[in-house]
């Protein structure tokens, strides 16, 4: 058998189309089933991550030394989700912003747990492998996880501004400090990699 036929060479831009299709599909599904707020919460960071990925690690994979920070981001997200679950995040969010959760939208503890700590973190861990093997989708997911960690960390502070009881504790605030810290540090590492790559090209 000719060796040329043994591998399917996927052009890089196919990954971009795949990511865009996934983001759009998930946002539409999120909008229908869990409402506009949850859809925006995930969709906006996903698009921001896409932008940063395209302008940094799209052409050249980030080095593997990012992986402990990536796994660290997954770890602090798990800790924040534990806090959110313990303090009834889903119900608190519905009480704070009821206009986003009117019928037929359903958002409760089971849906929160299913989307974020279970399916979400499992997906992140699978893509950690993809990144470890230096695949384009893994590189996108590294950006997404860091941007998502920042979003997940800051939104409880945003939501508390809308609470009827005034500014007070909102589930996820404590863990949010950790996720924001790791997310910002991860983004900084990736942006520095972009500069290193630029220098490499300018010296070439």
């Amino acid at each position, binding site marked *: 058998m000719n060796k040329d036929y043994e591998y399917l060479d996927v052009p890089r831009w196919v990954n971009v189309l795949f990511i865009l299709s996934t983001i759009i599909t998930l946002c539409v599904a999120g909008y229908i089933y869990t409402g506009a707020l949850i859809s925006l919460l995930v969709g906006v960071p996903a698009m921001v991550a896409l932008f940063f990925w395209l302008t940094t690690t799209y052409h050249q994979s980030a080095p593997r030394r990012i992986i402990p920070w990536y*796994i660290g981001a997954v770890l602090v997200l798990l800790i924040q989700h534990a806090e959110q679950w313990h303090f009834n995040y889903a119900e608190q969010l519905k009480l704070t912003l009821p206009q986003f959760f009117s019928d037929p939208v359903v958002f409760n503890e089971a849906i929160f747990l299913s989307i974020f700590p279970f*399916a979400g973190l499992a997906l992140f861990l699978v893509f950690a*492998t993809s990144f470890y093997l230096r695949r384009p989708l893994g590189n996108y997911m590294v950006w997404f996880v860091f941007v998502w960690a920042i979003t997940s960390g800051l939104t409880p502070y945003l939501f508390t501004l809308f609470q009827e009881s005034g500014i007070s504790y909102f589930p996820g605030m404590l863990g949010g400090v950790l996720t924001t810290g790791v997310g910002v540090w991860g983004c900084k590492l990736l942006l520095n990699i972009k500069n290193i790559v630029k220098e490499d090209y300018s010296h070439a």
Partner: protein
Amino acid sequence: MLNTNKLYLGVAITFAISFIVMLLQTAGIMPAIIIGGSMLVGVVLWFFTTYKIPANPKNVLPIYLITIAILLLHIWEEYLFDFGPRIAQLNGSTWSEVEFLTLIAFYLPVFWILGAIGLYYRHPLGNAMIWFIFIGMAFGEPVHLLVFPILDDGRYHYFPGMWSALFPLVTSIWGMSVLIKDYREESKLQEAEK
């Protein structure tokens, strides 16, 4: 170095024993035997393999990460179908859904994920965790198909976690074969260097 390694051995044994006690007090004897037994067998296998020569993450880290991902999906299935309370019925314990989620969905995964970071840095405790996970999946998960459904009410039927129980078994057996192969090669290299 040897003293530090002994300290890590102590930490791993203490962690396993304290977790078994915690399981006994909440989930009952059966989960304590399955999970605790896996932990102790994992510690023994770790001691005889990657305790002295930590595994090279290059080959085994991706398999470990996939295993944890599949395991999270498995726990999701268990949660959706009330695994905790059903096990409590079998055991005569009081394991509630909240206790199940706290222990299995949040507390333990923190250590599994820390294990991945430890494995990346070739830390002995990361290697202990990987053995615990692989042994736990290989011997603990088939129980969902072989034991729980029969014990439940005497007839064979669906038990929470059943549909996703065998998938982490695949990656864990794969992972253990890689660990052992790499360990043997590394041992031979070290002996040749002597």
